[in-house]
């Protein structure tokens, strides 16, 4: 056979500007696989230097319109840890509710609008809405997304770039009547979440147009873990290969390097290799902490921890949707709606924090001077963690697909990237697909 080159110039249905360039030799082996991030750099870590501690979470929110909340929450917690600011239990609960609301919105968006069209044989969700049998499915997606967004608005004030999070707490706490109304909708949405889990399984198995390749690669999976709850805003940094450190020690265990073909940096675990973060890593590492109904939903579709097929992320998203609804209800039930005013002293310090964005660990660290002015910032978004792992996946995935037509190979490569739910504005701060088979 001849050599082959798979290229995608501008990858659709993910956030940001990327392409893919894969060269397959005449021997059927991948010679080179590059996820090319051409998203221009915006220098957040650069221009944060000299800004005030109390505007950091507002600024870093703008790294990503799809996952503003984890950026805000990682940042605000890193600043609080740096200055020794204590926060109340209510603040912890409200921040988790805010994070869960964004998972609901983001997982619904991903499963139905970003991933489903590939599995169902469409270019986007728009023509799907034109098919009578699929219209109710699209309707369900919009309903779930609106619910997640309404919860974000109730707690954070706005869907994109919530504005109530501040050092020490919240500028305004949500109104009880509003959250009680949303709780009723969350209870009713459980059925939609179960349907999402089932749909994810049907899509993955190829029940509509095409399924996920039977691709298993046992790379390291990394997430934060808390034995007492499904970790989102705090927990120890753990992995399927025995990593177990406090989350603020991430700079010691995760090594980052700048590679010329990409405006995003590549990440490895010290002494090891690339790794995967996101829903599948969390599902594998934190299964025990999922809500009972989320575990039951996973069991019903035969989805169990120890799964190393990155395409299975779609099922993990469905399961986490069930969990997110359950835990949101739990939090709303225990909220006391206490009036609290953040209070603290501005101090010099340095620290780091990790939260789980819908697409994986989001790491922030800051050093501030005694006036609270930022001297140094370190921000690593989840996609920056995953990009190198995607490239490694292609070395094993593409040889499995070579009997298929080029269009199909290219699409399945794109689907792999989309399964990570990448966010390239975040990572540059990384995709483009090109399949090349070189001639003999």
């Amino acid at each position, binding site marked *: 056979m001849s050599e082959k080159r798979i290229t995608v110039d*501008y*990858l*659709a*249905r993910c*956030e*940001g*500007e990327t392409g893919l360039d894969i060269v397959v030799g005449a021997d059927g082996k991948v010679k080179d696989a590059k996820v090319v991030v051409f*998203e*221009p*750099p*915006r*220098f*957040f*870590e*650069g*221009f944060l*230097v*000299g*800004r*005030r501690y109390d*505007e950091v979470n*507002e*600024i870093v929110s*703008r*790294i*990503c*319109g*799809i996952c*503003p909340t984890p950026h805000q929450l990682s940042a605000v917690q890193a600043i609080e840890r740096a200055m020794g600011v204590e926060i109340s239990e209510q603040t912890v609960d409200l921040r988790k509710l805010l994070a869960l609301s964004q998972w609901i919105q983001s997982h619904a968006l991903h499963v139905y*609008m970003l991933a489903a*069209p590939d599995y169902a044989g469409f*270019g*986007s*969700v*728009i023509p799907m*809405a034109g098919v009578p049998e699929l219209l109710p499915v*699209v*309707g369900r997606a*919009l*309903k779930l*997304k*609106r619910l997640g*967004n309404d919860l974000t608005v109730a707690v954070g*004030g*706005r*869907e*994109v*770039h919530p*504005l*109530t999070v*501040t050092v020490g707490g919240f*500028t*305004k706490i949500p109104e009880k009547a509003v959250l009680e109304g949303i709780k009723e909708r969350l209870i009713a949405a459980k059925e939609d979440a179960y349907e999402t889990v089932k749909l994810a399984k049907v899509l993955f198995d190829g029940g509509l147009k095409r399924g996920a390749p039977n691709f298993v690669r046992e790379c390291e999976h990394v997430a934060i873990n808390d034995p007492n709850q499904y970790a989102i805003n705090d927990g120890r940094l753990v992995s399927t290969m025995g990593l177990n450190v406090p989350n603020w020690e991430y700079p010691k265990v995760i090594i980052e*390097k*700048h*590679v*010329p073909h990409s*405006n995003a940096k590549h990440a490895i675990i010290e002494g090891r290799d690339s790794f995967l973060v996101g829903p599948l890593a969390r599902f594998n590492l934190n299964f025990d902490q999922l809500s009972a109904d989320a575990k039951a939903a996973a069991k019903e579709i035969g989805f169990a921890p120890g799964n190393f097929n990155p395409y299975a992320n779609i099922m993990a998203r469905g399961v986490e949707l069930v969990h997110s609804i359950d835990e949101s209800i739990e939090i709303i039930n225990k909220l006391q709606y206490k009036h609290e005013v953040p209070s603290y002293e501005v101090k010099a310090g340095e620290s780091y924090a990790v939260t789980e964005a819908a697409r994986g660990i989001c790491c922030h660290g800051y050093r501030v001077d005694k006036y609270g002015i930022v001297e140094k910032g370190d921000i690593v978004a989840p996609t920056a963690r995953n990009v190198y792992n995607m490239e490694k996946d292609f070395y094993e995935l593409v040889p499995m697909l070579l009997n298929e037509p080029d269009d199909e190979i290219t699409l399945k490569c*794109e689907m792999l990237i989309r399964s990570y739910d990448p966010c390239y*504005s975040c990572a540059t701060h990384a995709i483009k697909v090109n399949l090349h088979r070189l001639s003999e």
Partner: protein
Amino acid sequence: MAKPRIAVFKFSSCAGCQLEIVNLENALLDVLGAIDVAYFVMASRDMEEGPYDIGFVEGAVTSPHEIERIKEVRKNCKILVAMGTCACTGGLPSIKNWTSQREMEARVYTELWAINSTTAYGIDHYVPVDVYLRGCPIDLNELVDLVKAALLGVAPPFRPHAICVECKLKENACVMLQGKPCMGPVTAGGCGALCPSHNKGCEGCRGPNNDTNAASLAKTFAEMGLSKADVVRKFRKYAGNTPQFNEGAEAL
């Protein structure tokens, strides 16, 4: 009338304004029924070529490649909409404009030869813009108003009054009287005074209003106890590139 062909382009941005289009949810199917989405990479693998009736541009222009691209986009669009603060004024990425580019690059990257970045500007620094959809992010109601206006062939009903007007309409207690510095007096409304309604000062994310007295506000900030550096940070955030906010930054 044929359905208008719509294109959505991303420049240097967070994609939050594009996401707001999808966040229309309740109105989304109606909107999609009235327009023809020809190019919207974040939502669709089907990418049709121009020309387009309306082009929505998200993001600031921050690289030589983007300077060329915005000129192409302009040629391909009958109506060009600057969607969100980055496209309107350069937005948050413009904070870097007051530090040398080399230093900025060295703070973030090691392989500096691979970085090719320019001063961050709104798109009207390079091409004429027909409609400004302000805010970081854009406001959903204004987006719907714009789509309706475009379908009717009329100008969208945007009013560049100050945020203060919206606080009065909502009967908000003024946050400045509680000692919280607020950019509301110099910032264009349309968001419904969102930040002051959540007990915090406006950060000026929508850029200057139509009758800005930024120097006066800068003095008021100083009287409230803000340092000169704090005042400069207030004005050089979302719209430091505009002459109005620059006046505030240089007032003290």
